[in-house]
């Protein structure tokens, strides 16, 4: 039964438009904000895949003029590029921002938004603690295939520093199959596993609430249905759409919940080693689940309902449901092994770094996880399997 929490807070701001011809709705959405000239921020890989051409076609027969397509973002969002984009924004007299892509592209767009809305040259005051309070310019996010989980949320990572503020929520997220179509199985698998971890951790976190469950539940459900079959087939648009939606929902749930161990460890280890978080999650998530199994941590029944559906839920006994849901999680992660093989370099992570990573993760957990717990999980994660 759904317990009613004594107190909770929840915010998920962006309007989500998902489906066929979703992109064509952007002009009318911009019209609602009285914006006519957005600056598009994207990356070279999106341009090379021809997605920008598709994107521009969506603006045909509208009165919107794109102020420019800034495509210099690659794998890093930094203040140098944010300033350049802000300069372009001001020079062209733009009044809105569109981020076409994922991860660093969206982070950069959020940074540009702060620079142009508050007329700043750098983000120093905000990194020192001042959160952007004013409503910023309308930011529209059009995600492409590889999510890092933070695009549609109120967090931004620029220059390796994370800023979290309600004002950073994008105005709208448009998920269109023409753009979310996968570029390669690895990206889809990374997206899927991050979304899986986020949805699972949101649902099992202390202090979860009905709103988080409402978003994490369908996310887990979609992932359970589409992850194993969809990840190896990036050209399957229905699977890509399902994964994209699942990722958005999982992120919305996760950003309202305290961060889980898998997430904290992945971020800290990614920072220490430079390996992509999606690849690290493939080895850390199973280790976290093993830890939960060993400690016999009680897992809510709803998780099994989301992952396996009503039939399996109804036929399993109450006490077994938690264990079954963990088994299903492990199966899902295993199914990605072909697409996302744990890389040799993931197992070559230097052991002396683990201590530092465990300390960082435990520190960021605000006391919910201890250093020995984190270290145990990390050590297990980087042990090369016997085969």
């Amino acid at each position, binding site marked *: 039964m759904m317990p009613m929490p004594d107190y909770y807070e929840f915010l998920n701001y962006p309007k989500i438009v998902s489906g066929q011809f979703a992109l064509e709705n952007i002009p009318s959405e911009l019209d609602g904000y009285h914006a006519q000239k957005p600056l598009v921020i994207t990356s070279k890989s999106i341009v090379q895949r021809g997605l920008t051409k598709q994107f521009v076609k969506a603006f045909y027969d509208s009165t919107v003029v794109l102020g420019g397509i800034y495509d210099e973002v690659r794998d890093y969002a930094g203040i140098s590029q944010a300033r350049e984009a802000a300069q372009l924004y001001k020079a062209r007299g733009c009044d809105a921002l569109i981020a076409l892509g994922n991860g660093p592209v969206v982070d950069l767009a959020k940074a540009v938004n702060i620079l142009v809305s508050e007329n700043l040259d*750098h983000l120093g005051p905000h990194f020192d603690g001042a959160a952007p309070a004013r409503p910023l310019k309308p930011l529209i996010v059009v995600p492409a295939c590889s999510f890092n989980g933070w695009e549609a949320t109120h967090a931004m990572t620029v220059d390796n520093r994370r800023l979290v503020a309600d004002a950073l929520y994008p105005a709208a997220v448009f998920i269109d199959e023409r753009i979310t179509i996968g570029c390669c199985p690895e990206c889809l698998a990374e997206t899927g596993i991050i979304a899986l971890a986020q949805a699972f951790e949101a649902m099992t976190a202390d202090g979860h609430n009905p709103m988080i469950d409402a978003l994490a539940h369908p996310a887990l459900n979609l992932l359970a249905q589409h992850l194993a079959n969809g990840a190896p087939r990036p050209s399957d648009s229905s699977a890509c759409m399902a994964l994209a939606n699942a990722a958005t929902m999982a992120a919305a749930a996760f950003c309202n919940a305290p961060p889980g161990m898998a997430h904290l460890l992945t971020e800290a280890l990614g920072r220490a080693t430079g390996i992509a978080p999606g690849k690290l999650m493939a080895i850390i998530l199973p280790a976290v689940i093993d830890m939960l199994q060993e400690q016999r941590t009680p897992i809510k029944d709803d998780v099994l309902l989301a992952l396996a559906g009503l039939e399996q839920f109804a036929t399993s006994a109450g006490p077994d449901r938690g264990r079954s849901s963990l088994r299903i999680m492990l199966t899902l992660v295993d199914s990605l092994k072909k697409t996302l093989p744990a890389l040799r370099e993931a197992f070559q992570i230097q*052991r*002396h770094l683990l201590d530092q990573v465990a300390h960082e993760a435990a520190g960021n957990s605000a006391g919910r996880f201890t250093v020995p717990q984190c270290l145990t999980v990390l050590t297990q994660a980087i042990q090369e399997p016997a085969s």
Partner: protein
Amino acid sequence: MQAKTITGTSNRALEIDLTSRTFREVRINETDLELYLGGKGLGLKLLYDRLTPGVDPLGPDNKIVFSTGVLLGTGAPCSGRFEAVTKSPLTGIMASASCGGPFGMALKTSGWDALILNGKAEAPTYLVINSEGVQFKAADGLWGKDTDSAQDELLKEGNGALVIGQAGENLVRFANIRSGHRFLGRGGMGAVLGAKKIKGIVAKGGEVKIVPVDKKKFVKTNRKFFKAIEQNPMTSGSFRYFGTNANVNPSNAAGILPVRNFTGGSHGEAHKISGETMAERFKTEWDTCKPCVIKCGHKGTIKGQKRHIPEYETMGLLGPNLEIFDPEVISDWNELCSYYGMDTITLGGTLAWAMEATEKGLIQTQLKFGATEGVAEMIRDIALGNGIGKDLAMGSRWASKKYGGEDFAMHVKGLELAAYDPRGAVGQGLSYATANRGACHLSGYVLALEAYFGMASPHATRWKHYMVKYFEDAFAAMNSLHICQFTAFAVQLEPPLIKLTADFVIKLLNQNLSPLALNLMDLSLWPELWHSILGKRYIPYLSMLKFRKAGERVHVLERYMNTREGISKKDDTLPRRLLYEGRKCDAKERTVPLEPMLEKYYKLRGFDANGIPTKKTLKRLGIEIK
């Protein structure tokens, strides 16, 4: 007491356990010497046999090996150098550094070919080495002293000393180790010694004499060597009279001088720091390693003091890279670095990052491009660990991970770039990306062909992978002899075939059929020296090929050791600025097209698509897989 004579090499290494304060003699395997030549190669092999992957570079399980090489002590030209190898605290992977100064000679003439340090001393200690072994002495009185005074103290007990300064004691990740007026500069070896609580190592020296087995051949080869060095315009001209700063004007002209944190490639005021200007301004005289016939080291009168003239890298990275063109100020900073014991290259790269980060609001410091205010104070703060100096002491990779600005942190694998911008010489870009210790310019000095001698096209990518591999192997072999890398100008360019062929013909051949062109190069002077000292039979051409293969072996072993620490293709890259941002000094605003060169390089080296040496390659080179 008459010195004992060693013919060839003693094949003795001294292995010291600092934790238990014990030592033992280790016999160097003949096969290892044959395969790895000595110097860097042998040092790496000794480390490979002992070091467990994944250890903390500043922990007691890290080891540091000082390896002298076969040539040292024999009087071979430019042989007064030795090599150190360890796991670097700056990069977390293998670091090797070469150094002149008196320590190498003192260690060799104490009867030891190599020195291995394990463990960690409980309290500050210094070591005194003689032919019997080592004495462990308390360094309480020395701890906290600068390198000058500490070295003066230590040299009372021997002919050559290695010493760290306060930077090493405070575990500055790019602290260096001093030997005379030279340094084991890169990779933070000073911090490794500092973590082991070793303030210095003195070698008595003068206890043994090293003579070559085949004296006649040795003398004959020496003569050929001297002739080549005297004939070559670089070794007998530019470097001899103007030092390494003779490179400033050609670099400026070729657009490879780093300006303002690598945003520019040339500057109108660069001539103020050129070797020619300084020779005249500071009335320079020679201040060299012994025995050196090139004599690139100079000292001059700066601000009324006799000071060693800063080398090109220092000038470039603490000069135009920070938009400073006053050699006196740069000399002040160089002196501070020597005093505290810090690598000027990493310091220059880190300061440039800090200036740009300050400009962009990522950190708050006094530093500004083109301004000298605050730099000396920051150097002190870095050495002593004060304020933000503590973070900058970790190097620009760590600082940019913490504060942002990764897109303008100019390092590869954590080691900062040397003073050559590869957007003006793309082969050097590949070399930076694939060099084993990080952005090392000495791994394969291809830019000399591209930017100085006109023997390769600076922006073409064709065959650059072959050039880089060739020079990496040659230089790895050279560092295993051990001989100064500047002899490469004489050895490679003086043979008649190269000398008498017009540069444009060499360029044409090199750019279109590099394997043929480079294989026609005669490197035999180097292996001839090695063979004559050990009395081994020298077969023309074949022995040279064996020498090059030994170099390949050394390079691949180092690479393999790095891959055990997690290095792979994702790390063989260049800073984003070099890959994606063009410069105004280049009309076409070109960047370095790394990817196509890298793929070909991996295939040529026998690495898989992820840059890991395959089992087949390791077997072919005789490297035991651990």
